[in-house]
């Protein structure tokens, strides 16, 4: 065991050089790298925290917005539902109204048709009755009937006195028209009754086969008659008036 002072000096120098070399190539780069990495990691952690906080805030804002939108959606849906219900009710009411109106119109139309049909039926019935009556009376009429009619007219003459007297002023004769020839006895009696009212006017009896059974007295412009035709005309007028009165009454009632 010996100590070589040259070697000691050389080793001391070598050691100092090694200290410098390792400081230059090992400790500094490694420690600086660790520090830099720690700094970078701290920075990244801080950035990550900031990003997390930002994301949390954005998430909160988003959730708030979402809740608001959901509330609005519910509100809109509720409003739309209410509006749709109102619209449906309105349309339903209008439709019901239209249906009622259509039904009323149909009923009115049907009632009118029934009434028209009834009126037509009545008119046709009346016409048939009238023509049947006319035919029956015409078929059954004869001289005897006309004689009775003349008797009736004779009975009514006193009531027509003033009218006859007023008509006789301008006329020179009076004519009695019948469809059958009257018996002489009947003619004389009627002439006598006539002359009691109009004394100065001669009375002639004429026969016209085309005339309706009955008697017609012509004096100047006046024409007084009592024929089956005039009865039937009166009946027809009465029926028409009656039917005419019934129709407006029913129309007004519907």
């Amino acid at each position: 065991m010996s100590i070589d002072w040259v070697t000691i000096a050389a080793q001391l120098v070598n050691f100092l050089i090694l200290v410098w070399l390792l400081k230059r190539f090992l400790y500094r780069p490694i420690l600086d790298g660790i520090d830099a990495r720690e700094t970078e990691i701290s920075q990244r952690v801080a950035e990550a925290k900031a990003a997390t906080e930002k994301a949390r805030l954005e998430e909160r804002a988003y959730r708030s917005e979402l809740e608001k939108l959901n509330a609005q959606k519910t509100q809109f849906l509720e409003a739309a539902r209410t509006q749709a219900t109102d619209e449906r009710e309105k349309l339903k009411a209008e439709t019901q109204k239209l249906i009622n109106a259509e039904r009323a119109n149909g009923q009115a139309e049907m009632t009118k048709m029934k009434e028209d049909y009834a009126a037509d039926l009545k008119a046709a019935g009346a016409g048939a009755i009238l023509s049947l009556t006319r035919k029956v009376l015409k078929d059954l009429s004869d001289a005897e009937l006309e004689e009775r009619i003349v008797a009736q007219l004779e009975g009514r003459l006193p009531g027509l006195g003033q009218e006859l007297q007023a008509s006789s002023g301008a006329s020179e004769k009076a004519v009695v028209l019948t469809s059958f020839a009257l018996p002489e006895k009947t003619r004389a009696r009627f002439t006598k009754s006539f002359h009691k009212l109009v004394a100065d006017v001669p009375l002639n009896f004429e026969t016209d086969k085309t005339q309706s059974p009955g008697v017609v007295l012509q004096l100047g412009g006046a024409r007084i008659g009592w024929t089956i035709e005039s009865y039937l005309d009166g009946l027809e007028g009465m029926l028409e008036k009656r039917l005419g009165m019934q129709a407006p009454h029913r129309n007004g009632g519907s």
Partner: protein
Amino acid sequence: MNLTPDAHIIFTAFGIPVNATIVNTWIVMALLTIVSMIVTWRLRPDAPPTRWRTALEVIVQGIEKQINEITRRPTGRLIYFVGTLFLFIAMSNLLLVVPGFEPPTASLSTTAALAFSVFIAVPAFGIARQGIGTYLKRYIEPSFVMLPFNIIGEFSRALALAVRLYGNIMSGAVIAAILLGVAPFFFPVVMDMLALLTGLIQAYIFAVLATVYIAATTEGDAKLTSKKEE
């Protein structure tokens, strides 16, 4: 059989003999430096660390942690000195397994040089931290009578460091060489394995003691020094 590589002269330069201790020291220095340069070349903080870089970081941070546990304060420049001591001694001792390689730490000259560097570093760090007045004052504490004992204590500490390391490594190498002659196939392997463990422990002890001495000086805590030595 040479007990120290100092006697093994490799070549002579300018009349100065260059022995195996110096050459092997250069080899260890080159190995440490080249590996460090390769690993830390184009080191960027944003790049993911490689396996080699991670390994070096583990080593450097381990050294830093040990120093911090002893000194209880940021390592500062102390890591350059103590870390280099540890890495140099550990690498020298680990290269014991390479056939034909004589560890520089098996030379008393090397261990003496390392102990001398510690001997210089202790007052250097103490003066740098406390100032020369405060540092020198501790030699006359608790009284002026203690001055010679304190000075002797400084020298003995350095001597103990040198001899402890030299003795351990040299003995390991010598025992391995002897056993190689006695039982060439089995015992040298076992002894080399034991020497690896011993070498690492010695490197650790040397570095820790250096740290304790420096820390005790800079903190002025003499009790810490004696406690650690025990």
